[in-house]
Structure formats: structure tokens, C-alpha cells
């Protein structure tokens, strides 16, 4: 057998170019197949590991996906807030060991500003046992402290001590910047490859303070600098309440095409507040703020945010930065078995309707929804493998005619037809094997070279790890199919060598 293996190798080498092309086509298809699987499981792992160790996530009454997406992934927003009293009531529930409240809805240069407590830095877990840790600085303690996710810090180039101006709502425009209330960076988190990297953390009081100042000094808006300018010209703005009439805003020029002139709007638009700004929601019962915020996806500047706050009752003026509401909160139970019961209790509570979800279950549901695309990818990859193997079949089969003399020589020196069959099968198995090896090496090469780029672009951490069971199964499949395919030319050669004997009819 050693001789036949050596013969097969030398025979393949003698047809180096064809062999190379065959191996390359198999290698590329294996790269596709294994690469897709690798990325898929990497994304899935990264996805499933976004949040760990939390038993329940609780948001205002709504769909479970909505709660998950807004709380864990920072996508969309929860429609309404939960009153702080309700949050406290649940936080003090006997089954609850700890809880992390979140107040969402503000942004800084399109990164979300999230108000939370120290529990977040201590309790939040992701992947195996990933903890929130500081690259620099410390947690937010006062209402002016800001902690940056790793990506925010690196993209925006902020360092400790940098002042931050927060925009109301989620758009990147600067008109609604809370210039009057500059925050200061006190901490930068280590990279986690979770949505934490793309968020800015303040205290719950910080979120409230932001709103109060905004409400008191909207005059800053008319002279707001272009988006992203971190300077604070608004600080010099006169503390004049511009009032509800357009003439009071001489400096303000809405961009052409802006659908709503602030002054043109009726002073009261009941019910027009969109769900995008739960943190800014007035307390229940308060007349709804006029000047609807543009929806989250809007890229237009926010003229309406500069809306004079004519009828907004101004009772935050005492600068008592007490949180009045949270968007959602995470709960860790004392005993995990109580989580289900607690969930039921929360979901059926009549005082304030909330939705409590189990993160693992909701993540699984979400993954189910988005994983159908992967089936398509896998089918494409399978076809690529089929094409690669067919290429090999064509190459081997078409070489047979030229090799009839070779077969006759082998028969003359005593090789049986079975030897000839094994020679050809070994050749195709070798091609498939080398193709598999190269394909896998290629995957790792791409991962090694492209890892940081993929992380930077997608925020998905693709671990360079050993091949998983599925990948081995694919490789075995390719190798097995490659070997089986070798039997097609081999059987043809077997028949030919039987009829040709020692004298191939040329």
C-alpha cells in the first residue's frame, strides 16, 4: 500500500497544475463551508453570551423581543417606562437578590447613554464569566460622571476627564444637546465584544439631571453647534425662556426640508410623544410634552427638541436628581428556581403592567428568528463543495484516457485491477484531503488576519478556536465524498484495464 500511495503522490505531482486546480477548488469550497460554520457558531456564541447570570429582564408591558432588544442590545426602545416605585417594589421582593436598573433613551454622538447603578458594574456578566471591568478610571458615582464603553472611547477618542455633551433622543444632531449639563468621563471600560462597548453609562440621577437642565435651559438650542462639536457655546446662552412663539428664536434656522418648524407646531400635541425617549417621559398624568421627537431612525436634526417647553411643568427645578422612572431592569434571584415564579408574578401584576423575560429563552427565540439565513448560507456552501468535488471528478476522469498506457504497465509488472482501483481512489482521496487541510488552514489564516477587522467592523468577537464537531463532520463528509467520487474513474479504469490487458488500443 505504501508503494501505491507513493505512486499516487508522484502521479498527482506529475499533473501538478491540474492537481493544484483541483485541490484549490476543493480548498476554497471547504473554506466556505468551514468558515461559514465557524462564523456562525462564533456569532451564536457571541450572541448567546451577550448576557449571563441574569434571571429576568423586566421592561414595560410589551413584546419580549422588544424588552430584550432594547435592554441588552440597545436596539429600538421600550415603549414606556416603569415607575421608580414599581422598580423598587420588585427590587425589594423577597425572591430578588439584586437588580440592575436601566434608564435609556439619550444619546451622545449616536451612542446610547444609559443611566444605571453600581450594581451594573458588579453584577453584569457576559460569555463564560466576563465581567465589566475598567481599562481606566472608575464607576460613575456622581450625577456628572460618565463611563464609556470601549468602542465609544476609541472611536470618539475620549480620555479620562473629557467633557461630554449629551443629545436628547437618539439622533446624532446637536440641536438638542444638553450643553448646559456637561458630563465628565471618569471611567473607560475594557472591551467586551458585547453591546456594552457601544454604550455610555451614567447614574440614574445623571439621566434625570440631564433632563432637568435641558428643560430649564432650552435656549441653548438655537445657538447649538454642529453635530458632534463637543464645545459648549450654549453655556453662554442667556437664560431666557424663548417661549412658544417663533419670533423668540431668531438664531434658529431650520434646515431646508425640515418638516416641522418648531414654532409652527401647536403648543400642545397630546399623545405625540414617540416611544423613543422613555427616559424623558414625563411622569404619568403630566400633560404630554409637545413637539414630537423624530423617530429613532431619523437622521434629520431635531428641531422639535428645541421646542420651547411652554407647558411642561417645571417642578424639577429644585435639582433634586431623584430617578422617577427606569426603562427596564435586570433581576438576579436568590434561588434560580424562583425565577419562573417571579416571572409569572411580574407578568400578572396589576399595579403596573410589566413584561418579565428569561434572557436565555428570549435570546433563543431571537436566534431562531435570525438563523434561517444561516441555512441558506450553508446550502450555498454545500453546493460549492459539490462543485469542487465535481471538478475533481472531471479532472480525474478526463486524465484516464491518457493514463491507459500507465495502467497497462502497472498490470504488466503484476498490479491487479484492484491495485489500479486503489491507486485512483487514493489519488482522489489525497486531493480531497489536501483540499480539506488547505481549506481549514485558509479559514484560520483569514481569521488570524481578519479577526481584528471583523471585531472592529461588526463588534463580533470571533474566537480562534479548535474545529468543532460540526466542522469535523463537514470535513469527514468532504473527504468521504471525495474518496467515493474516486471510485467513478477507478471503476472505469478497472474495466479498461481488464479489456486492454497489456495492450491499450491507442
Amino acid at each position, binding site marked *: 500500500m505504501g*508503494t501505491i500511495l507513493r505512486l499516487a503522490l508522484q502521479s498527482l505531482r506529475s499533473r501538478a497544475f491540474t492537481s493544484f486546480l483541483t485541490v484549490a477548488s476543493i480548498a476554497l469550497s471547504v473554506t466556505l463551508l468551514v468558515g461559514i460554520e465557524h462564523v456562525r457558531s462564533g456569532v451564536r456564541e457571541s450572541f448567546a453570551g451577550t448576557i449571563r447570570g441574569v434571571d429576568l429582564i423586566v421592561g414595560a408591558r410589551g413584546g419580549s423581543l422588544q424588552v430584550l432588544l432594547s435592554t441588552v442590545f440597545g436596539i429600538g426602545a421600550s415603549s414606556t417606562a416603569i415607575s421608580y416605585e414599581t422598580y423598587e417594589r420588585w427590587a425589594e421582593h423577597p425572591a430578588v437578590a439584586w437588580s440592575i436598573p436601566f434608564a435609556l433613551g439619550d444619546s451622545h454622538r449616536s451612542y446610547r447613554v444609559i443611566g444605571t447603578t453600581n450594581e451594573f458594574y458588579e453584577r453584569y456578566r457576559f460569555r463564560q464569566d466576563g465581567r465589566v471591568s475598567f481599562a481606566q478610571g472608575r464607576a460613575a458615582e456622581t450625577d456628572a460622571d460618565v463611563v464609556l464603553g470601549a468602542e465609544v472611547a476609541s472611536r470618539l477618542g475620549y480620555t479620562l476627564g473629557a467633557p461630554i455633551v449629551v443629545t436628547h433622543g437618539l439622533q446624532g444632531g446637536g440641536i438638542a444637546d444638553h450643553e448646559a449639563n456637561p458630563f465628565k468621563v471618569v471611567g473607560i471600560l475594557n472591551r467586551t465584544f458585547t453591546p456594552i462597548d457601544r454604550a455610555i453609562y451614567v447614574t440614574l440621577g445623571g439621566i434625570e439631571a440631564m433632563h432637568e437642565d435641558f428643560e430649564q435651559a432650552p435656549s441653548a438650542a438655537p445657538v447649538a453647534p454642529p453635530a458632534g462639536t463637543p464645545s459648549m457655546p450654549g453655556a453662554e446662552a442667556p437664560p431666557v425662556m424663548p417661549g412658544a412663539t417663533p419670533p423668540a428664536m431668531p438664531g434658529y434656522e431650520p434646515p431646508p426640508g425640515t418638516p416641522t418648524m418648531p414654532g409652527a407646531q401647536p403648543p400642545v400635541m397630546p399623545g405625540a410623544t414617540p416611544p423613543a425617549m422613555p427616559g424623558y417621559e414625563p411622569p404619568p398624568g403630566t400633560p404630554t410634552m409637545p413637539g414630537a421627537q423624530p423617530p429613532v431612525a431619523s437622521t434629520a436634526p431635531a428641531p422639535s427638541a428645541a421646542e420651547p417647553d411652554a407647558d411642561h411643568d417645571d417642578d424639577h427645578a429644585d435639582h433634586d436628581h431623584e430617578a422617577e422612572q427606569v426603562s427596564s431592569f435586570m433581576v438576579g434571584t436568590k434561588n434560580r428556581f424562583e425565577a419562573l415564579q417571579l416571572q409569572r408574578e411580574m407578568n400578572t401584576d396589576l399595579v403596573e403592567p410589566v413584561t418579565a423575560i428569561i434572557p436565555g429563552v428570549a435570546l433563543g427565540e431571537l436566534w431562531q428568528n435570525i438563523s434561517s439565513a444561516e441555512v441558506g448560507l450553508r446550502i450555498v456552501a454545500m453546493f460549492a463543495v459539490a462543485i469542487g468535488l465535481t471538478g475533481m471528478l472531471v479532472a480525474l476522469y478526463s486524465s484516464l484516457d491518457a493514463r491507459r498506457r500507465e495502467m497497462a504497465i502497472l498490470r504488466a509488472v*503484476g498490479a491487479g485491477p484492484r491495485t489500479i482501483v486503489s491507486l485512483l481512489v487514493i489519488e482522489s482521496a489525497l486531493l480531497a484531503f489536501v483540499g480539506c487541510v488547505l481549506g481549514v488552514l485558509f479559514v484560520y489564516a483569514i481569521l488570524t488576519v481578519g479577526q481584528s477587522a471583523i471585531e472592529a467592523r461588526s463588534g463580533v468577537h470571533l474566537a480562534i478556536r479548535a474545529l468543532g464537531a460540526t466542522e469535523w463532520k463537514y470535513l469527514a463528509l468532504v473527504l468521504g465524498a471525495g474518496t467515493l467520487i474516486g471510485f467513478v474513474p477507478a471503476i472505469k479504469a478497472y474495466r479498461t484495464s481488464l479489456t486492454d490487458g497489456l495492450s491499450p488500443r491507442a
Partner: protein
Amino acid sequence: MMANAAPPAVALSNVRFAYRPGQDVVSIDTLTIERGETVFLHGPSGSGKTTLLGLLAGVLTATSGSVRILGQDLTPMSSGSRDAFRAQHLGYVFQQFNLIPYLSVRENILLPVRLDSARRAKLGGTDPVKAAESLASDLDIASALGSPVTELSVGQQQRVAVARALIGSPEVVICDEPTSALDSDRRERFLQLLFASCQKAGTTLVFVSHDFSLQPLFSRTVELPQINSASALIAKEN
């Protein structure tokens, strides 16, 4: 079996062969070649030469009759045993294109002993590479041993084929028009080397050619058309 001196190298009796039923290509009542003989098997094309050689080599099976090589009847053997028998006891030289192009000269010569352990055993402990080198120097191709076969002249290629047929000292070597691609000078030289090597190894040589001018060099001549009563039919077919 080898120790038994009695059985002739080749003994055919009442051999019939047909590719299609009823159309005999070979029909030989008797043909006996003793050990150590150098036999010139002469026949024009279409006289059933190739088929006869296929029968002798055990690649084809006689429809009826017995083909005994070294006393062993190949006809009832399984194809696997015939392959093994051929590997062990037979050398074969083709008209041309004897060599596997992707192997070096040395590897081509070594092929039979590498593929078959019984043939390797016949080297009697001699290192196969040494045996190949010794044969190559006898056949005057020692300098070409490391070369790819594509760089050799036709004459050299044929001598490499002879070296391969002779390695491991098989009892019978069959040559199928090995000189037809050589000019007359080289043909003479080739035959001298072939005879010398066969003599040295005590090998029985069955040499097939349509070139009658070579006939005086052999110990015996067999006219194929005279012993093959089916040859007329083949001539017609061709």
C-alpha cells in the same frame, strides 16, 4: 516449485481463446518452451501475437485448454492469483512507452519489487536499489538512473524496460517487439545486452517480432501462423 526442474517454462496444450464466442483468435494445440531457451516467436500482425502474449502473461484467460507457466496452469486461477503469479515470475517488455513517465529511471526499474513482496524476496536479501544499479550498469544505463524517463532516448528507454523486466530474476521474460522503434545498429546492441542479461539471470526469453532478420540470434524460432490454426480468421478480421 522452482526446485522442480522438470516442468518447462511454457507449456500450452489445446488452447483456444475467443473475445467473442465462436470466433477463435488463438487456437494452439501444443507449444512448449524449455527453461533457459531464447525463443523467437515470429508472426505478422494479425497472427494472434498480442493475444497469445496476453494468455502467457495471465492477463487473458484461455476459453479452453491449459496454459502452464513453470508447471502452473493459469486457466483455472483466479485473476488475483494470476496477477500475483505474473508479478512474481514474469518480466514484460513492450514495443515502446514502457515507462511510467512520472517516475525516475530508478523508480521504474524498482517498480516490480516494490509492488510485489514475493518478487522482492527473490532478490535474496540484495538491496533492491543495488540490484537496480547493477542491472542498469549491465545494460549501460547507469548514468541515467536518476533522470526522469522523458529525457531518455528510445533505445535507453527500452533498456530500462529490460532492467525492470529482469529485476528480481523472474523465470520468464516476454518481449513484445521491443526493437521495432530502434534503428538497426541500436537493435543489435540492444539484443546483445538483452541476451547477456538473460543469460546471467538464467531467464527464459520469449521474444516476439515480425522482423525476421533477428531470428538467427535465438536458440529457437517458432512461426506463429504455423501453430495457431485460428490466425487466418484474425487476419481477415484485421
